[in-house]
């Protein structure tokens, strides 16, 4: 199993604020890695470093065995990395269909106009967006916007998919729908996924491994079970009822 | 992507080639024919009711609005007077009325070219008058001269229009190159020892061309230019310029550009109270009545003017020079203008009237025959209320005004009242120039 992403000892600070302090992690092919931690832990900053929006102050980022530290975002994207944004960034004045089509056009695949359109249609159907194809992206509700983000990322046929809170703000049935789609997408496209998530039961459910960030440092790493039992993690999250509930849920379901 | 781009570029090249080729073909096909030039579209005015059409544009809007409006008043007054007398008598004995055809050019040269084209080809006017200002006249000349249409340029003092080889454009204003020279002459007359001159002009087309000619003239006359600078249009604060002039030890200042900046310059100069400066001559601003708002600061300031209501041109003066007098006297003009518009005419208005007057003279002699009109204008040497009018007729500066000269005005205080008087040339002078400027005492 080859290493898809390796982050080594990455530092990043803004002014006086240290957002990342010596974070390292490794993601193997075919894996779903959950990235959790309280607000301000540096999760999104880490995504931005990986995807090249920020240049790390120190440390290196390796993708598919190549050192990509300091590469511009679009070059990293062209390696086969796709991401979604915490606050969705659809192309508001383009239709849903056009959003996906643009993404296909700039993926590494060489498709004819006709093929690209077919492909866009396929992806929209996969995410249940086909009936909204002619709507402007700006007219979508949150749930559909999140789906569009995912659709646009999948349209690139990436090898590594970075999901930044795609479940936030969704109701339970929508969460279930998205989880289902992510799992299926992983199988169908042979993806490796790193996901930042606050919906704990979802992460615990879907992730193979979990990395916990706290105040810019890696606090713990392990399987969901290990993380759930780690006293440091519990301490860091103490007082977060949602998380506590998720832990309890997880542990009790294991016992049964 | 690349191959697509190439395809598009190829299409672009082909289309442009087709258009270009067509244009070339058309030009090639007929180029050998003798130029069936524009004479063909000569006026039709002669028969139907006999109306002579005079065309021009005026700046009803934009930055030249004010001066242009006065010029228009002058032209209108002329046309009304002519028509009230039943029109102009042509050499063939017919009497034709005058019709003014004019449009708003927004003070922009793009509009000027568009509209002169329309005047010539659509309205088929017989003679043209220029728009106001050198810049717009240059743009108009580029159109009109090609059609061999006579255009009387008024409100355009630039010399450069007349070095471009145009053959049908005639200038009424004293050109920029001689704008300030009389101010230099006056200084020489007043004080032989005042030789240190500061030049501070606006960085604009007109002021710049006056400045360079003035500079050359000063050097020729043995003056020492101790300071020279150009301020950007719209400048309101002259503190640092005045500081440098003061530090330069200059004893005379020549400068200005438009009304506003000249006004501010004098105002701040007066406040600064630089005792060393004894002589101040400013472009454009002093002849304006609004200059009086400066109060004491205006006293002693000299300014060149194309024309003033107090000028002394007269049939007698013409006789002395042995040239023909034509048109109304100065007083008649001023009186007619006052009764029509309720105010004293300035030089823009006088220039407008004079342009009409010259056309009237030409039409009486040449009718509507442009080539004959050109011949008459080339050899013209007359005196009118506007002054002497004579054009340079060789090709290198064809149409440049060489007969007319500037007068200098000075603001003086008599019995506590601020008045504008002509002080130069002596023949036209109403009073002697005050020297040195009061504040230096």
């Amino acid at each position, binding site marked *: 199993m080859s290493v898809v992403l390796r982050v080594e000892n990455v530092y990043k600070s803004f002014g006086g604020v240290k957002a990342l302090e010596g974070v390292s992690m490794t993601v193997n092919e075919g894996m779903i890695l959950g990235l959790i931690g309280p607000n301000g832990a540096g999760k999104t900053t880490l995504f931005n470093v990986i995807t090249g929006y920020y240049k790390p102050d120190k440390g290196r980022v390796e993708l598919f065995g190549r050192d990509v530290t300091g590469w*511009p*975002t679009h070059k990293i994207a062209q390696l086969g990395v796709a991401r979604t944004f915490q606050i969705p960034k659809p*192309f508001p004045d383009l239709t849903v269909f056009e959003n996906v089509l643009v993404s296909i056009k700039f993926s590494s695949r060489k498709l004819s106009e006709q093929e690209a*359109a077919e492909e866009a249609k396929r992806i929209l159907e996969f995410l249940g967006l086909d009936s909204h194809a002619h709507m402007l992206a700006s007219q979508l509700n949150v749930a559909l916007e999140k789906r569009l983000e995912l659709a646009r990322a999948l349209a690139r046929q990436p090898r590594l998919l970075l999901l930044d809170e795609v479940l936030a703000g969704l109701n339970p049935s929508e969460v279930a729908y998205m989880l289902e789609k992510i799992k299926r997408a992983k199988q169908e496209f042979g993806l490796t996924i790193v996901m930042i998530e606050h919906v704990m039961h979802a992460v615990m459910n879907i992730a193979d491994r979990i990395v916990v960030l706290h105040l810019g440092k890696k606090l713990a790493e392990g399987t969901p079970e290990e993380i759930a039992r780690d006293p440091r993690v519990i301490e860091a999250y103490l007082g977060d009822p949602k998380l506590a509930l998720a832990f309890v849920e997880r542990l009790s379901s294991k016992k049964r | 992507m690349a191959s697509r781009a190439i395809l598009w570029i190829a299409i672009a090249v082909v289309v442009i080639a087709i*258009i270009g080729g067509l244009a070339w073909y058309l*030009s090639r096909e007929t180029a050998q024919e003798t130029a069936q030039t524009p004479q063909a579209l000569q006026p039709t005015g002669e028969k139907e009711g006999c109306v002579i059409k005079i065309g021009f544009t005026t700046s009803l809007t934009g930055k030249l609005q004010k001066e242009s409006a006065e010029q228009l008043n002058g032209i209108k007054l002329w046309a009304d007077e002519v028509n009230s007398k039943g029109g102009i008598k042509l050499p063939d004995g017919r009497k034709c009325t005058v019709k003014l055809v004019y449009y708003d050019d927004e003070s*922009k040269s793009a509009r000027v*070219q*568009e509209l002169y084209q329309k005047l010539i080809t659509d309205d088929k006017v017989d003679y043209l008058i220029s728009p106001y200002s050198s810049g717009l006249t240059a743009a108009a000349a580029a159109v009109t001269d090609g059609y061999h249409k006579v255009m009387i340029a008024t409100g355009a003092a630039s010399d450069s229009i007349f070095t471009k080889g145009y053959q049908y454009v005639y200038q009424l204003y004293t050109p920029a190159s001689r704008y300030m020279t009389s101010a230099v002459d006056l200084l020489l007359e007043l004080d032989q020892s005042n030789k240190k001159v500061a030049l501070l002009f606006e960085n*604009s087309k007109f002021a710049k061309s006056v400045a360079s000619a003035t500079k050359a003239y000063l050097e020729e006359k043995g003056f020492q230019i101790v300071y020279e600078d150009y301020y950007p249009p719209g400048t309101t604060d002259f503190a640092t310029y005045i500081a440098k002039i003061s530090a330069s030890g200059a004893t005379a200042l020549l400068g200005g550009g438009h009304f506003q900046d000249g006004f501010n310059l004098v105002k701040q100069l007066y406040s600064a109270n630089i005792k060393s400066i004894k002589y101040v001559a400013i472009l454009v601003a002093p002849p304006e009545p609004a200059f009086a708002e400066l109060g004491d600061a205006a006293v002693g300031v000299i300014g060149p003017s194309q024309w003033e209501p107090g000028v002394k041109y007269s049939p007698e003066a013409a006789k002395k020079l042995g040239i023909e007098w034509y048109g109304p006297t100065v007083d008649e003009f001023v009186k007619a203008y006052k009764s029509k518009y309720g105010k004293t005419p300035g030089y823009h208005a006088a220039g407008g009237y004079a342009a009409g007057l010259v056309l009237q003279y030409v039409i009486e002699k040449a009718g509507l025959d442009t080539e004959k009109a050109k011949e008459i204008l080339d050899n013209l040497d007359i005196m009118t209320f506007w002054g002497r009018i004579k054009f340079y007729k060789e090709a290198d500066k064809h149409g440049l005004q060489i007969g007319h000269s500037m007068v200098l005005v000075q603001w003086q205080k008599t019995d506590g009242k601020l008045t504008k008087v002509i002080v130069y040339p002596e023949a036209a002078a109403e009073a002697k120039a005050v020297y040195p400027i009061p504040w230096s005492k």
Partner: protein
Amino acid sequence: MEAKNILRELARGRMITNITVAAIILALLTIGIGSLYSETLSYYRETLSTFMMLFSVVLGLNIILGYTGYVSFGHAVFFGIGGYTAMVLMYYYGVNVYLAMIIAALAAMAAAQAIGFIVLRLRGAYFAIATIAVLEAFRVIVSNVEYLGGSEGLQLEASYYTGYSIAGYRGQMSVHYIAYFLLLGTVTLGLLLNLYVSRSQFGAGLRAIREDEDAAEAIGINTWKFKTLAYVLSSITPALAGAIIAWKRNIVLPEEFFSLTLSIESIISVMLGGAGTVLGTVTGTAIYHTVKTIFLTSFPSLHLIIFGITIAFIAEVLPMGIIGWLRLMSTRLRFLLE
């Protein structure tokens, strides 16, 4: 929704645009040729020349403002650079206008590359302000450099034009006709460039940048390269128009060639029709030019006020322009109204 349907609609839309564009070019060509033989058309020829001058700037601006979403508030800077480059070549070296145009366009492209390197790192209002500053800086520099004629400008002599002739018209008489056809060529080039941008993958990338630059990077678009290229392309037609107008008017003046008014007029034209659409540029410029001419002749003293109200109206009520509004009314029309 069938993919094939979309493609068919797309093709139909493109066909309609192609026919419209071709019809416009042909009509302009006919009027131009007609004016060679009929004097009555010559006023229309001059009005259309002014229209095409503005249209050339608009077509350039639409690439950077419409497709890429960068509000270039000083786009006339390329008109000025083109005009001055051409004039220097013609005035000092006697170069003919055709060569001068080509060099002017190349000079403007080089300038766009350099200016873009500075201003394209800015976004939104900062970019807009920076482009105003660039325009004003050029104007000040040009009016102070003697070689460029300073504030007096450079003026060609009548004799420069003796070599030109068309359909029996010679010298300065021929200039207005030739300039018309040259402007038509420029407009044609501009329309083709816009069509290319609207239909190519390059244009799709620009649209993505307009919509969200970060997301565009994330889907693998080299945004820096794309927007620089867009800026360079957007300088071509304004520069060509500047060169032709310099030649036609025979004089270049700093305030007329580096003019904020021209910049703003072209923005209004783009916005009026609908930014980022080919048909929008035509519609917007045509309406603006016509309305302006009517206002100026009918209400000369009120025209500033009327314009102010019109501009504010567009901004507040019709920010996507006429064509943009129609497109929004029905997404079906998106394909028909490119």
